[in-house]
């Protein structure tokens, strides 16, 4: 039942601005003072997405693996910066391990999906590698942030228990075993939950996009299943790597906890 996509003309695009006009009107009426943000947001949406569209057109036509991987590396670096800004932990340098775990896990998962599952030719084919990689980075970065938040907060709140175990001969791994598990769980649970609700509570964005573009729903369902599974895989791998590496940095040579006892350190 594939149908050709209905293009949106410039006039139709301008018509969609009516929604913004409605929001601005509401803001003015109720003095929400959101007019500036609404206009700026609209402008940025147009600008950023058109720039992205032209960039993707160029990349798809150019088909150069170096360019594809460079773009992917930039996406991951941005994601790692976003995580860094969200966590705001000063006592431990967690940016390098975060970047490393994202690079490893996301690259492995994306390459497996494009090369083995979808079997695009070549496996780094930009039409597949960039959007699928983008989905992995965008969704899994949240998992890394949740994992790190839980790791830092539990290490602090359970300091007495940790030190009790260390005092009885535990090494840092044994002493923080429960915290390790909880941090990994915190990162993985949202992607598992989304598998529970998918198709009932919500229609995923990628599937919606494909259906709107005229694809057979049964074809887009298969793509969506692959996406859901790869997100679970990437969150599991990245949460594991980041927890192993960052936890080590939270303890000193004598396995002592290096995080100072502050309660409100995490934003």
């Amino acid at each position, binding site marked *: 039942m594939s149908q050709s996509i209905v293009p949106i003309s410039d006039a139709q695009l301008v018509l969609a601005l009516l929604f913004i006009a409605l929001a601005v009107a509401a803001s003015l009426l109720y003095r929400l003072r959101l007019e500036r943000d609404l206009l700026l947001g609209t402008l940025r949406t147009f600008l950023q997405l058109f720039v992205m569209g032209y960039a993707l057109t160029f990349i798809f036509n150019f088909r150069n693996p170096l360019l594809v991987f460079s773009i992917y590396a930039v996406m991951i670096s941005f994601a790692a910066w976003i995580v860094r800004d969200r966590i705001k932990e000063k006592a431990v340098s967690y940016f390098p391990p975060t970047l490393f775990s994202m690079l490893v896990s996301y690259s492995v998962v994306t390459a497996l999906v494009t090369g083995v599952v979808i079997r695009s030719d070549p496996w780094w084919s930009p039409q597949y590698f960039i959007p699928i990689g983008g989905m992995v980075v965008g969704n899994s970065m949240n998992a890394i942030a949740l994992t790190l938040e839980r790791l830092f907060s539990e290490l602090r709140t359970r300091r*007495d228990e940790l030190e009790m175990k*260390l005092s*009885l001969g535990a090494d840092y791994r044994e002493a923080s075993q429960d915290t390790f598990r909880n941090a990994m769980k915190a990162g993985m649970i949202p992607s598992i939950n989304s598998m529970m609700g998918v198709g009932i509570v919500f229609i995923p964005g990628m599937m919606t996009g494909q259906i709107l573009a005229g694809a057979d729903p049964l074809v887009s369902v298969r793509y969506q299943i692959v996406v859901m599974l790869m997100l679970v895989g990437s969150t599991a791998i990245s949460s594991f790597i980041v927890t192993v590496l960052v936890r080590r940095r939270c303890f000193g040579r004598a396995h*002592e906890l290096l995080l100072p006892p502050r309660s409100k350190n995490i934003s």
Partner: protein
Amino acid sequence: MEFAFTGRPPLLQEVTLQVEAGDFILITGPSGSGKSTFLRILARFLTHTAGSVLFHGQPIEDHEAPQYRRRVAYLHQTPVVVDDTVRHNLLLPFSFKANQHRMVPSDDFLVKTLDTFLLDGLALDHPAKSLSGGQMQRLCLMRSVLLEPEIMLLDEPISALDHESRQAVEVVMETLCRNRRIAALAVSHQPLRVNCASRVFELKGARLARREPFLPHHSETREVSTGNA
């Protein structure tokens, strides 16, 4: 040995102390004088900023931390137990790699040892979190003693307890000191009624000063010593 937190004036200066087998050393001093910090340095939760801390003649940094901490046991001011039974709490250390060569005590042995720690009648299946502060403190003492440490570092061991529990903990500490020849280093802002306290020091103005003359009661000289390198 000296210690200062980054950007702060020294909290401990020219602190020199030698601990010997069977010693019971009490360190008193006003709140914030660095008593607990001193113990945490010996437990290797903090690192001294100058001088040296030796254990059996070797810098403590040269010892593997898990093995060192098994031999130099540190007890928190507030007793810490995991949310499980008394038995689980007592056997918890035996699951750690550093203690796996040690024989796991039998239930009979645990019940007998509970008596020594004035916890007679306490069932091994009893939930540890429901014990009173004094009982928990003694349970934590017992848990450390089961690993046969050479030195025990006790941070305010009685400050959070009521009168009756204090007396029980003091009796247990005295028994350990007399019968097991475990050296103990206790910091407390309150006087401890432990008759075998061999030396009493006061920590004031970052320095450690002896309060009472040393009463030697044995000849072995070893364990932890701190001094300026």
